[in-house]
């Protein structure tokens, strides 16, 4: 589409400038600035209620920002509705699994693929006649090893499978940046290890912003961590620097 001409790889995929979100008097997100470049793998950690999910909601346009800016490929999208931002290469998953429970795995993926295609407005031709859409769906399901369960209704999948399908739906639109909200929540350690391996296999140009409480997952996936505390970024740096920071130890790990 009409991306700015000055794209040279050094332009951030996603940039937040002093982003704020208040609920009444509560500053859920306060003055958060962040840059994510193509291929970056960054994590956001912070205690419960720190404002991590709210930050994702403001980035994706689920909530309007109170102030500050969200930029995608240098373009200010702060006032855009969700669906337009998604059209620019943004995708996310949800902390609380948010799939289409009564539809099959395949139908979930088909919906996700159609999201950015103009054919989503076609009313006179059955979806099943779109061979390219089905091919893409099968490829996605193959990658995630879901092929054998494609006709299972999503509500009958295990929690772990649903968490993974969340990510598959996020990937369906071929995003440039994927926001993952606690993908490993509620997974067994074996399952989260699988999840980490799955994430590692993804396209290296895909930028990932990850919210996660499981520090093993964080260290395995991300190279950079921002620590959110009461809506503000308390500290940001490489995984090593953050894991050594005494301030972070105090507020987050409760030790030190």
């Amino acid at each position, binding site marked *: 589409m009409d991306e700015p001409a000055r794209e040279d790889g050094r332009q951030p995929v996603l940039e937040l400038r002093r982003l704020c979100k208040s609920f009444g008097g509560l500053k859920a997100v306060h003055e958060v600035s962040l840059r994510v470049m193509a291929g970056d793998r960054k994590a956001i950690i912070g205690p419960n209620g720190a404002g991590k999910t709210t930050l994702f909601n403001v980035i*994706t*346009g*689920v909530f309007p920002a109170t102030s500050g800016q969200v930029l995608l490929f240098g373009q200010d999208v702060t006032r855009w*509705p*969700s*669906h337009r931002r*998604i*059209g620019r290469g943004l*995708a*996310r998953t*949800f902390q609380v699994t*948010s*799939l*289409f*429970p*009564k*539809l099959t795995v395949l*139908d979930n993926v*088909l*919906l*996700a693929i*159609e*999201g*950015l*295609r103009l*054919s*989503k*407005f*076609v*009313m*006179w*031709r*059955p*979806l*099943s006649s*779109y061979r390219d*859409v089905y091919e893409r769906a099968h490829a996605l399901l193959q990658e*995630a*090893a879901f092929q054998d*369960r494609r006709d*299972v209704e999503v509500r009958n*999948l*295990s*929690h*772990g*499978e649903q*968490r*993974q399908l969340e990510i598959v*739906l996020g990937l*369906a*639109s071929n995003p440039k940046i994927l926001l993952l909200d606690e993908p490993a929540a509620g*997974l067994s350690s074996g*399952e989260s290890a*699988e*999840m980490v*391996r*799955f994430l590692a296999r993804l396209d290296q140009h895909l930028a990932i912003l990850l919210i996660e409480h499981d520090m093993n997952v964080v260290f395995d996936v991300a190279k950079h961590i921002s620590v959110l505390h009461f809506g503000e970024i308390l500290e940001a740096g490489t995984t090593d620097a953050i894991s050594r920071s005494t301030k972070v130890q105090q507020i987050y790990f409760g030790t030190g």
Partner: protein
Amino acid sequence: MTSRTKAVAVAGVLLGLALIAPFTDAFVILLITRALILAILAMSLDILLGFTGLPSLGQAAYLGIGAYLTAILATKFNFGLGWSFWVVVVLGILLAAATAAFFGLFAVRASGVYFLMITLALGQCVWGLAYRWNSMTGGDNGINLPGRPAFGIQLSSDVAYFYVVFGFFALSLLMLYVLVKSPFGRSLEGIREREVRMRTLGYNTWLHKYLAFIIAGGFGGLAGVLWAHANGHVSPEDVVLTTSVDALLMVVLGGPGTLVGGAIGAAAVLFLREYLSTLVAWWQYVLGAVYILTILYLPDGLMGVATRLRRSSIALGRPEDAKHPVIS
């Protein structure tokens, strides 16, 4: 049942109906004709209620618009009684769709019970117009049509008119069936299931709901044009809230999200009402009890009965594979 055998079954039933209907008596033919028209209305509502998850309580408004347009054109302009009947059909659909496009600006932003209230209020506006605009609508008395159209065939024959309505019903069913299977139709299902997720998948959910609302209005208008000629009379009674509630109950009774369910519901309600009223004095209560029992015990309506029977026979024959979750 695969979707193909289902389609064959529906086609078979329709064919049977088309063959048998002429041999029944005049009263039954008219009853079937009415049921088919209300079935179109119910199916249009099913697009909203069953597929998009929008419970509209104002669908009678579009029936009324189609019906009044037909009656007014016929009496004031002597239009639509020959070949121009087909023009009236198109006009009825367009006017109802245009009204829906206007109403949708207010209604589609809301959801759940708010959507219900707004569509109810808008429906009442149309009723108020029919009731008050004496010079145009004949007020309380309504309008008597001069007769059914004639273009080569005399639609004044109930059998001929039945076939016209039957044709429109079959065509509507086919078009709506294609619609719900299309990418657009599937997106409506997604919106019904989880709207926020649909937005974060790139869908402008408002637009999809708005388009669905307009389409439903258009089919409601078609039902209205046919309704006016079926009865030869149009009155505020056709636009009254009860008609909207009836349409909603037909969908719920038949099974929301199935299209055919709306048709079955329409037939069931019409025949129950017609025959119960001759059998029992307190038939309204019987009908009310049927509704309540359906909602309590058959949340998927009459169509759900078939599904349940099928499910239980599958469960008996072959226990579901117990698959263990594997993430990779």
